[in-house]
């Protein structure tokens, strides 16, 4: 047993060689092709992920009319953008955006289930499913946000949105000060998944 987990010096090179040989043999036998891995990973790397949410938020920052439409009818507003098919799919169709504003900070949680707006936010972080986070965020959101390094002033209202099977929330953070000269695509890089969950704010680079 201990032999099995005794680490060799060249473990990286050895693992890499094993995967190379395995892929080559599966291709040779016609089970997969040399495109298979890239095709599967494309889904995570270019189709469904937080880059979609970043595009939605950046558009809302530069276009106040879009921002209003996004809050009023989130799926319809998202459909205006040139995003991959499936954005309004099984996970995306009940999406609702809530916008931070002076005096209001929004936080999204999910106390009951795994309802996470993946097409927009990507994969949830480790702590998101932690029962302690979920129950404490509902009960004492200010204390939890402070622990995330985001103390919220007393005169700012904190709204907590609990996702369900029916509605999956995401936050439109406020546009950071000092970003007036940035293009829409430059603004996209400032939008993090954490900011769209409300456990952080968007910051100028």
């Amino acid at each position: 047993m201990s032999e099995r987990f005794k680490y060799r010096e060249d473990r990286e090179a050895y693992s890499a060689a094993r995967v190379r040989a395995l892929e080559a043999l599966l291709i040779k036998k016609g089970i997969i092709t040399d495109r298979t891995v890239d095709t599967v990973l494309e889904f995570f790397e270019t189709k469904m992920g937080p880059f979609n949410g970043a595009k939605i938020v950046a558009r809302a920052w530069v276009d106040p009319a879009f921002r209003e439409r996004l809050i009023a009818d989130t799926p319809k507003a998202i459909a205006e953008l040139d995003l991959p098919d499936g954005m309004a799919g099984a996970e995306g169709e009940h999406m609702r955006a809530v916008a931070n504003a002076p005096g209001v900070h929004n936080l999204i949680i999910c106390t009951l289930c795994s309802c996470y707006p993946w097409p927009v936010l990507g994969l949830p972080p480790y702590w998101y499913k932690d029962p302690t986070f979920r129950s404490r965020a509902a009960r004492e959101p200010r204390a939890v946000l402070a622990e995330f390094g985001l103390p919220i002033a007393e005169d700012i209202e904190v709204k907590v949105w609990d996702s369900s099977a029916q509605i999956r929330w995401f936050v439109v953070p406020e546009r950071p000060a000092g970003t007036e000269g940035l293009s829409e695509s430059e603004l996209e890089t400032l939008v993090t998944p954490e900011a769209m969950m409300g456990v952080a704010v968007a910051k100028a680079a």
Partner: protein
Amino acid sequence: MLTQFEHFAVTEMMGSADSPPRANGTLCFGSDWERTSFGIALALAKEGYFEWDDFRDELIASIKAWEDANPSDHSSWNYYEQFLTALESAVVKTNLLTASEMREIFDLSNQTSQ
């Protein structure tokens, strides 16, 4: 619209013992072989060569065995080493490759990595 297999497969792993490393909402690969291992396993399950849940059982068992063998020092932990072990086991169990083909892969890898 139906949920894509890729979505289902990874969502199933969230909050479980075999949930993959991730950062900023995306999967996090330390090197190309990790990415390739993940892609092969997901593609084979998507094509129906094995059930994703069966693969995950292998992976969870592999992780558990590592943890039992390394109870205190986790400094050498690499998720994708266990992932690759589970993938190799799955392709042999489902007869995609024979045990002797897998031995050849190990022999070849031993030579090329030294």
